[in-house]
C-alpha cells in the first residue's frame, strides 16, 4: 500500500478508534491487533476519511466497526472482491482488508488467490487463530492435523494450509508474518505492508483464548520463542536462538534449509528473493517459524494499469457504424 500523501500528524492512536464498544472475548488476541493497527495509523498519520477497512465474516471481521475510518463489514470471504471494486472506483482510497483463516483461506480462498495475483493495492491482514471462533470452535483450514473440535471429535484428518506459502504461491509481492503479542514487531510490519504499493499480505498469529487457547505456545511461549522464531530482516543473516547462536543456511547441493550453529555461511535475508521466501514461509518445527517481511518485490499495481477516460461523446458512440436517415 502507498503512504497517503496527506497526513494528519496530530492524530493519536485513540483518534482512530470509533465510539463502538469493542466486543471480542476478554483476552482475545484481536485487541492487541486493534491496538497495533491504531498505533500504526497514528504513526503514519493516515487520513481517516480516505481510509477504508473492509472485512468479511468472523471475529476478525468485526474490526471495521472499531475504527473511526470508513468501514464495510461484508459477507463471508468476499472482502477482497469488494475491496477490489472500491479500488477500481477510487484508486486514491487507502483500503485495508481484515480477514481470518476461515474467511480468507476457506470460504474466500478463491478471492484471496486472485486479489493477490492481480496485485490490487490493498493491505490484507489475515488473523490466523487456526480455528473458527464466531461459529463456536470448528476446525479451520489452518488447523493442524488432529485438532479436536465440535466438527472433528476424533481430530482433524486434513492437512493445513500455510497462509504465507499460499500467498506466495498466488503471486503476492509482499508477504509478512507477525504475532499478536509481538506489539513492536507487529506495528513495524504493518507499516511496511502499508508502504508497499500493491497487494500486501500480512499473516498475524493470533490467539483465540476461548476455542484454541495457546495453540501457538510452541512458537510464542516465553521460554521457547528465541529458538522457535527467526525474525527475518532484509540484508541481515538469518540468526535465531537466545544468543543468536543458530542460523539457517542452504543445505549444500539441495534446495532446502538447515540449521547450523552460527557460521559464516548463514544465509543473509534477501526479501526480493521469492524462492527463499517460499522456503522461509514453509518452515515447520523443528525449524523456527519465520517472522517479518518474508518477501517484498513491488510491481505496478492492478488498478493503476486500468485504462479509463471520461468525456467521450455519447452521440458519437450511438452514431458509430452504419446509420441511415429516414426523411419525412
Amino acid at each position: 500500500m502507498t503512504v497517503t500523501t496527506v497526513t494528519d500528524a496530530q492524530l493519536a492512536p485513540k483518534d482512530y478508534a470509533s465510539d463502538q464498544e469493542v466486543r471480542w472475548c476478554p483476552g482475545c488476541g484481536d485487541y492487541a491487533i486493534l491496538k497495533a493497527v491504531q498505533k500504526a495509523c497514528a504513526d503514519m498519520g493516515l487520513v481517516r476519511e480516505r481510509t477504508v477497512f473492509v472485512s468479511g465474516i468472523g471475529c476478525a471481521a468485526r474490526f471495521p466497526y472499531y475504527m473511526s475510518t470508513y468501514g464495510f463489514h461484508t459477507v463471508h470471504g468476499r472482502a477482497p472482491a469488494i475491496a477490489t471494486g472500491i479500488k477500481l472506483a477510487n484508486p486514491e482510497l487507502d483500503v485495508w482488508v481484515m480477514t481470518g483463516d476461515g474467511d480468507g483461506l476457506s470460504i474466500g480462498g478463491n478471492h484471496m488467490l486472485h486479489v493477490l495475483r492481480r496485485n490490487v493495492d490493498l493491505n490484507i491482514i489475515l488473523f490466523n487463530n487456526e480455528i473458527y471462533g464466531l461459529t463456536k470452535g470448528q476446525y479451520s483450514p489452518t488447523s493442524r492435523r488432529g485438532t479436536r473440535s465440535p466438527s472433528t471429535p476424533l481430530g482433524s484428518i486434513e492437512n493445513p494450509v500455510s497462509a504465507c506459502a499460499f500467498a506466495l504461491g498466488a503471486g503476492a509481492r509482499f508477504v509478512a508474518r507477525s504475532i499478536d503479542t509481538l506489539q513492536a514487531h507487529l506495528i513495524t510490519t504493518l507499516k511496511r505492508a502499508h508502504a508497499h504499493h500493491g497487494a500486501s499480505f500480512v499473516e498475524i498469529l493470533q490467539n483465540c483464548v476461548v476455542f484454541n487457547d495457546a495453540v501457538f505456545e510452541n512458537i510464542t511461549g516465553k521460554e521457547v520463542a528465541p529458538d522457535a522464531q527467526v525474525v527475518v530482516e532484509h540484508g541481515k543473516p538469518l540468526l535465531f536462538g537466545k544468543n543468536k547462536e543458530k542460523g539457517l543456511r542452504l543445505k549444500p547441493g539441495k534446495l532446502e534449509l538447515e540449521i547450523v550453529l552460527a557460521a559464516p555461511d548463514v544465509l543473509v535475508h534477501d526479501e526480493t528473493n521469492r524462492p527463499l521466501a517460499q522456503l522461509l514461509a514453509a518452515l515447520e518445527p523443528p525449524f523456527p517459524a519465520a517472522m517479518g517481511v518474508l518477501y517484498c518485490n513491488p510491481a505496478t499495481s492492478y488498478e493503476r494499469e486500468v485504462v479509463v477516460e471520461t468525456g467521450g461523446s455519447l452521440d458519437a458512440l450511438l452514431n458509430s457504424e452504419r446509420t441511415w436517415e429516414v426523411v419525412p
Partner: protein
Amino acid sequence: MATSAVSRPGGRETRDSVVIRFAGDSGDGMQVTGSQFTLETALAGSDFSTFPDFPAEIRAPTGTTFGVSAFQIHFGGTDVMTPGDSVDVLVAMNPAALTVEMSDLKVGGTVIVDTDAFNERNLKKAGYAKNPLEDDSLARYQVLKFDITKLTAEAVKPHGLSSREAHLCRNMWALGLLLWMYGHERTATIEWLQRKFAKKPVIAAANIAALNAGHAFGETAEMTEHMVGYVVPKAAVQAGRYRTVSGTEGLAWGLVAGMRAAGIEKMVFAGYPITPASALLHTLANLRAYGVVTFQAEDEIAASGAALGASYAGALGVTSSSGPGIALKTEMLGLAIATELPLIVIDSQRAGPSTGMPTKAEQSDLFQAVHGRNADAPLAVLAPTSTADCFDIAIEAVRLATKYMTPVIVLSDGYLAHAAEPWLIPREADLPRFPVTYRTDPEGFHPFLRDPETLARPWVRPGTPQLEHRIGGLERDYDSGHISYDPDNHARMTKARADKIAGIANDIPLQSVSLGEDHGKLAVVGWGSTFGAIHQAVKIARDEGQNVAHIHVRYLSPFPRNLGDLLKRYDRVLVPEMNNGQLVKLLRAEYLVDAEGFSKVTGKPFRVTDIVQRIRGGAPPPSEGSGLGGEAG
C-alpha cells in the same frame, strides 16, 4: 410471404413482408450472412426483426444436425414485430440445415440449396437415407438447386485461393443472390468486407467477387417462374437517423447514458464469462472512453462483490450474468439490500435449471429475481420489451437504483441479447437527467438517515471528511445506523426496506394497455421479449373481431400501482410466458385475479400463431420440435 396484388415494378413482384432463414454449419458464416443482409435491409428502409439461433458448441462436427447455425430475419413495410413464425425462404447450405430448419418453412415456400453439399457423406450425417433433392419429399416447396460451391469457386478463381478458402466464400455468394432477390444494395457489405479483411486484401477481393457473382447470377440467370425478384416496401416510420441495435448494445449504451444522466463519473462493470451474457462484458470493454471500467472477476460472486464495492465508493456498480450466475450473486444482492447501495444486475435469461440450454432463451428467472433470496429481501425488477427498449430500461434501472439506493435486476434474455431491430437514435441532449447527490454535510448525519419521500438513505463516498461511518450486513438501528439486534427495530427495518421498494410504484408510469381497450373480455398480459409476438397476435385476433387487449408489464417489482385494478376490468386474463408459469402466479398472488397461464418452454420464442390460437380458444398448435441444445459455459 404476405402477398399483395401481383405487380411487377421493374419485373419484380411486391411483398408486404418476408421471412428469410439462412442455415448452415456453424462454420459456414450464417450469422455474418444474416447480419449483413440485415444491414442492407435496414439501409433499404424496411422495418425488421432478427433471430440468430446458433448451437452452444463452438465448432460442432461438420455436417451434423446439432452443428446447424441459423439466422432468421423478418422484414417489410408494416407490422414487423417478431422474427416471423414461419419461413418464406430457407437458404440451406447443407443437408443438416435442411432437415433441421425444414419444419418452419411455409408450404409453397422457397428453399435454396447448395447441391454440392448434398453428397452421400453429408446426407448420411443429416440422417437422410435418400437425397431429398432427388425424390418428391420437397414437392410442396419451390426448390432452387444451385451448385453454390462450384459457382463460388469459379467466381474466386482469379484470386488464387486454396479450395478451403474458396469454400469459405460460399456464404457471400448466397448473400449476393438474396440481396438481388429483394433488390437490396451491396455497398455496405462490400465496405464491411474491405474493413474486415483490410490486412488480407486477397480474401476481401475474393469474398466481394463471390458476393457479386451471386448477385449477377440472380440478375442474369434464366428466370424461372420461381426465380423472380421482389420488392418489399419501405416502412412508414418516424423521420430521423436510424441504426440497428441488438439488446446487448442497447443495454451497454443505456448504462452509459444512465451513468451520464445520473452525473456519475465512472461505471465499474464486473462480470464473469457466461452464455449468453458475455456479449455485454465484451461490448462494455470497448467503452473505456466513456468512463467504463470492466473487470472480469474470478467468479460470479466476486463480480457482484466488485460491483457493490464500486457502488459503495460512489461509482455505478453493474454486474451481469445468466440464471446460474445470478444464483451465485444472491448473497451479494442480500448485502446490497441490507446496506442499501445502488447496484445494477443484468440477467440474460436462458433455459434451465442448472446449465440447461445455454444458447436458448427462456423467461424463467422471474421468481429468482423477485423472490430468490434469503429472508425478506425486496428489490426492483425491470424487463425490456425489445432490443430498442433495452436502452431505455438500462437508463431507468440507473435512475431507480441511485434514487432509491437499491439493487435493480434487469431481466433480459438470450433472444434479446442477440436479436436486432432498427432504432431511432436518441440524442444525448434529449435524454433524461437525474443527477445524484452524494452527501457531504456532516450536520445530523448517520448512514441510514432516510429521505422522507423516497425512504432512501444518503450515498456517501469514502473520502468525504467527517462522514466516516461503518456499514455492513448486520441489522442496524433505524435511528443511529449502529448494529442492533433489537426485535422491534428489526421489524421496523424490515418494513422500511419493503416500503422503500413498494414506494417506487409511485415513481413509475401507470400500467398502460399496449393494444385495445382498458376493459373487456380478455387481456393478454406479457412481459419481456414476448412483446412482439403477443402484440401481433392480439392485433390479428382483434382484426377477427375478438374483444381482446394486450398489456405488457415492464415493471415487475414493484408492479405499477394501477395494474391490479386494470386486470380486474377484464373477464379473463391470459399470461403467455416462456417459463412454466411465473408472472401468472405473481399476479394471482398479488391481486387475487383468476389469471390463466400459457407456457412455452422449448427454448424458442413464441410464434404469433401460438398465441392467436390460444386467444381463439383452440389447442395450441404442435410445437416446432425439440430445440437442439448443447453443452456450453
